[in-house]
């Protein structure tokens, strides 16, 4: 099945995020063996574009297993390789022998297989078919070029690849969607129409549902509006047709301050770089002010009916996640708790009293394979406290969780919230030497010295394992100063190799009075 008709359209969607694509198409090879051999070059992504109708003689589970096994085997013993995309098949094609139940079973088997294979993701054609194009198939195109999809479906597939899947694979992701209120989440001006007078149409409800989906996918929602706070609280309390509640927003700036300043303040509150924020506002003049005052914030002009905004957010590059976010349910609550922590910190007599009052529990998980997905996620989205900037692939995470290595995933909770798994320390061990491959922590967990507690414990564990020397490959990046400053506390001279005993002593001294309860899980 030719991919060229899709790739013709992928480029324009890539330009939405200032990227370009060079597509190299293999010879027609239904066995896939040659394609996978070819995929060991310099490609960023390998797509197995499969006409599943050709494999209808097999049971669907067998067909899916055949491809998954080929991908796994193609990567060989090293476990390394480029990310692989595999398409499923849409229902309703009408090919003899390819029933909808066969297609559904194939899709389920591919979902299962790709979920368990690192860096392997499904291009869900069946989901795209359901989204908006009933005429997904075109028998005429199939007759002419063995290409079964309609032109509209082709553009839809290209958009999904170029504006959703590929940016999710290769670009740093947005983390926050900040929205205005008036003429964005509803029609009307809250200050003039009042909480009961603003109008909520189907488009606004669709937009609010889209924002909730983004929150469930792991994005942080923020509110940035020039209004009276009391009006906004009444609005969310009174309007039962709102899909969103005020509690869905991890950061709220409702005042008469400037929007650029408020967006920068949201970034500071969330410990994020402003470039992690996408701001949605109906007023071009406000967007222009943000472009000048907070130029790193990404901007979207809202459609006052809400419908267009919902459509933009459903396809905006950087707002797509390849896998479900493992900690999305915890994130908003934890970020809201950070504001309470700030109040506690301000009221405490000294830092020790503040930490003691938090009642922290730190869970240290040693080589815990169930955390692989979360470790991969943290490695690829953490920018500030990220010492080595290793940007681990799922395959590298799997290797680091294997024998001969020490990888700690660190979960944190305190009296105010459960933060989930927030930090990772990964070491390769070779005899008496250990190499720090990755040390990172979610920005929302900073400020409680948990990084020092985990580091100190890890050094002790390395010592127990017979290590005497630690190699540290810290890398300076555009935003990871907090991690570099942390390391400087213990390695002020910037040495790449440090005797473990010396480091242990320094780190231990630093955390000896830390009040957290530490629980180890092996």
């Amino acid at each position, binding site marked *: 099945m030719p991919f060229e008709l899709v790739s013709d359209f992928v480029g324009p969607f890539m330009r939405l995020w200032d990227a370009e694509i060079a597509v190299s198409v293999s010879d027609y090879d239904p066995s896939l063996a040659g394609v996978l051999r070819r995929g060991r070059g310099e490609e960023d992504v390998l797509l197995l574009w499969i006409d599943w109708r050709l494999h209808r003689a097999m049971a669907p589970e067998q067909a899916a297993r055949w491809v998954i096994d080929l991908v796994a085997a193609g990567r060989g013993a090293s476990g390394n390789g480029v990310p692989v995309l595999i398409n499923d098949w849409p229902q309703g094609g009408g090919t003899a022998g390819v029933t909808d139940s066969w297609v559904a079973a194939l899709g389920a088997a591919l979902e299962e297989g790709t979920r368990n294979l690192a860096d392997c993701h499904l291009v869900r054609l069946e989901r795209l078919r359901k989204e908006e194009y009933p005429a997904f198939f075109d028998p005429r195109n199939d*007759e002419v070029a063995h290409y079964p999809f309609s032109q509209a479906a082709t553009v839809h597939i290209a958009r999904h690849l170029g504006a959703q899947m590929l940016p999710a694979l290769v670009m740093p992701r947005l983390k926050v969607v900040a929205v205005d209120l008036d003429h964005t989440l509803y029609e009307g001006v809250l200050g003039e129409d009042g909480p009961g007078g603003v109008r909520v149409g189907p488009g606004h409800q669709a937009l609010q549902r889209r924002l909730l989906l983004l929150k469930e996918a792991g994005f942080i929602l923020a509110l940035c509006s020039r209004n009276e706070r009391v009006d906004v609280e009444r609005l969310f309390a009174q309007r039962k047709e709102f899909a969103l509640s005020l509690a869905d927003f991890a950061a709220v700036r409702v005042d008469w301050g400037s929007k650029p300043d408020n967006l920068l303040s949201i970034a500071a509150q969330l410990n994020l770089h402003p470039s992690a924020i996408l701001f949605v506002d109906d007023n071009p003049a406000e967007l222009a002010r943000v472009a000048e005052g907070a130029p790193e914030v990404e901007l979207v002009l809202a459609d006052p009916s809400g419908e267009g905004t919902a459509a933009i957010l459903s396809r905006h590059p950087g707002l797509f996640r390849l896998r479900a976010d493992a900690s999305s349910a915890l994130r908003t609550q934890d970020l809201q708790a950070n504001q309470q922590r700030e109040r506690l910190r301000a009221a405490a007599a000294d830092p020790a009293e503040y930490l003691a009052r938090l009642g922290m529990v730190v869970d240290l998980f040693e080589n815990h394979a169930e955390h692989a997905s979360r470790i991969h996620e943290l490695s690829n989205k953490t920018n500030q406290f990220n010492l080595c900037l290793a940007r681990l692939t799922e395959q590298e995470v799997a290797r680091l969780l294997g024998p001969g290595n020490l990888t700690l995933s660190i979960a944190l909770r305190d009296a105010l919230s459960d933060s989930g798994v927030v930090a990772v320390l990964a070491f390769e061990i070779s005899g008496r030497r250990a190499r720090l491959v990755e040390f990172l922590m979610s920005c929302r967990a900073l400020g409680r010295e948990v990084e020092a507690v985990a580091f100190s414990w890890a050094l002790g564990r390395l010592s127990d394992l017979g290590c005497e020397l630690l190699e540290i490959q810290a890398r300076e990046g555009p935003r990871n100063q907090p991690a570099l400053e942390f390391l400087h506390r213990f390695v002020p001279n910037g040495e790449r190799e440090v005797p473990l005993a010396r480091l242990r002593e320094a780190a231990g001294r630093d955390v000896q009075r830390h009040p957290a309860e530490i629980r180890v899980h092996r």
Partner: protein
Amino acid sequence: MTSRERIAAILSEILGVPIDAAQEYAREQAENWDSLNHLRIVLAFEEEFGVSLQPEEVVAVRCLSDLERLAQRTA
């Protein structure tokens, strides 16, 4: 721009060769007028002229003049 010139421009862009609208241009003249590019030509033609061709019409297209006739029919 006449219909014929618009069709010549489509063929030229997809096949990557200069095509003179005043001359006939047939499938046999282009090595790369294969089934994939045939479909590309048809899809671009349909978009340009806002039409939808039947399967038998698509298969019957052999040259620039065939497409011109289809464009005139739907005008």
